[in-house]
């Protein structure tokens, strides 16, 4: 009887795993299949490295599909957001793990988790009413810009970064702080020379997951980045890959090059994410 239950259980697990893998394979195959026809009309090089995006034929000019600016904007805004978020996130995590008492930690953690659960459209709304308005006051024309998107995105990444960083910091603090204390070494010295270095590996893992979220984030970024096909600059407008897809998929004629090009842009986003993951992983394994 025991054995039969075991076997049944195993079979169920195998089926569930199979379904997951199949779904993933299906998504990738589907996107690749829909993306490929693009390259009948546009060369890969032109698609990736030119910056004219004119999906509909105009008078006297053919349609053009170059997504270089979108790629640049996606990478630019994600890394900028990550930079802002990781500095603040590690600071907050250090406070929570090494300064705050158990009671304060007990109060703060649920709040941080709550922040992680807020839908991105709400963040986008806050971005419009607070960040964009602030930029407008400071004198940025129309207020929407890449920096606004990066700040908003950073705020969205913070809860996740704070909770995962403070978790590893806390674990390493429990392991090493007392050992430092027992040698008479100052707590902050132990934190900066032992506990933080010991936590880098997990912090980098958290960064990989966060950057994935940042690059795929559509709604909030779309609301504040300005959506103009321009090369990203801090205070200028730009447009991310995810935003292009979301904005144009509804109007693209089914089966047109435009339609396929949007799929190709999605494929580029996936590949980009993959490259960045592998890159950070390599840094992580080399450094530590």
């Amino acid at each position, binding site marked *: 009887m025991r054995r039969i239950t075991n076997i049944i259980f195993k079979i169920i697990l195998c089926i569930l795993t199979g379904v997951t893998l199949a779904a993933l394979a299906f998504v990738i195959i589907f996107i690749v299949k829909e993306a490929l026809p693009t390259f009948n009309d546009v060369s890969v090089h032109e698609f990736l490295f030119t910056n004219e995006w004119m999906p509909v034929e105009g008078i006297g000019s053919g349609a053009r599909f170059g997504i270089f600016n979108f790629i640049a904007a996606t990478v630019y805004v994600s890394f900028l957001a990550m930079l802002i978020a990781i500095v603040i996130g590690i600071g907050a995590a250090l406070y929570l793990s090494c300064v705050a*008492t*158990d009671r304060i930690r007990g109060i703060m953690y649920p709040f941080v988790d709550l922040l992680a659960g807020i839908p991105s459209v709400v963040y986008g709304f806050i971005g419009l009413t607070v960040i964009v308005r602030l930029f407008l006051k400071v004198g940025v024309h129309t207020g929407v810009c890449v920096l606004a998107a990066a700040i908003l995105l950073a705020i969205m990444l913070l809860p996740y970064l704070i909770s995962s960083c403070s978790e590893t910091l806390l674990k390493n603090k429990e*392991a*090493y*702080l*007392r*050992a430092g*204390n*027992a*040698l*008479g*070494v*100052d707590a902050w*010295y132990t934190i900066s*020379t*032992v506990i933080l*270095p*010991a936590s880098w590996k997990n912090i980098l893992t958290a960064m990989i997951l966060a950057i994935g979220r940042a690059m795929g984030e559509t709604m909030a970024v779309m609301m504040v980045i300005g959506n103009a096909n321009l090369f990203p600059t801090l205070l200028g407008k730009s447009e991310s890959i995810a935003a292009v897809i979301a904005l144009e998929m509804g109007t693209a004629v089914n089966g047109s090059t435009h339609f396929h090009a949007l799929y190709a842009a999605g494929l580029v986003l996936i590949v980009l994410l993959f490259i960045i993951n592998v890159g950070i992983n390599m840094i992580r394994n080399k450094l530590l």
Partner: protein
Amino acid sequence: METIMNTESIGTEEYVARSAGTEAAMRVRELSVSYDNKETLHKITTEFPKHCITSIIGPSGCGKTTMLLSLNDLIREIQGVKVEGEILLGDKRTDAIPQEELRRRVGLVFQTPMPFPFSVYKNLTYAPRYYGNHNKKDLDRIVKEKLALVGLYDEIKTDLNKSALKFSGGQQQRICIARALTVEPDILLLDEPCSALDVRSISVIEETLLRLKSQYTIIIVTHNIAQARRLSDKVIFLKDGRLIEEGDAAGLFREPKEAETREFLRGIYG
């Protein structure tokens, strides 16, 4: 020393009186410690003779770790702790000694080996560097000397740049003992240092401690009575935060005075 070795197991007051002639490295008077107003140690008075191994034994939860943590003031790192009474290092109250100096002079080794996640060399030079020693030659000497003290130098001298986490549990614990010695303490506290180790490592560590005795005063918490017998010059038996009985090891194990001690020792032997 002699007086202690010859003393039969006797009641607490009498023991303190008789061994008064022996020089104590540390003394504790009326030490009470409570966590969040829950009293964990109650008016402990005892002393730790120089260049001896003193074992603290007792059922789990009786306050042995609390006692050790009090001795080098690590207890203050815990929230909600109250400490009363006095602790003397030599003839100076520990609360009059700067915390950093106290912790240097009274080293502590924890139950689970906790080497830093660095190379052995970096582990052993960590504290000396912190205290301003950056002389390469000097640091090399410290590493060699302290590893030799714990009988590890010949064993791992070609692996000094290997991560300390890659060594066996017993080796890690000896690295931790060596690390505690790098700040030149007078007294070495060990909190059940062998409880996570295999039999072979335990006997190596015991040999190490017996060797270190000539240079350091050693205070060890152990739940292993056989180990306390093998190592100790003096034994302190705690129960429920009270000092029930203390005395020279040979006498106390042969002929415990207090019924509770007898019961505890019998319980351990089964």
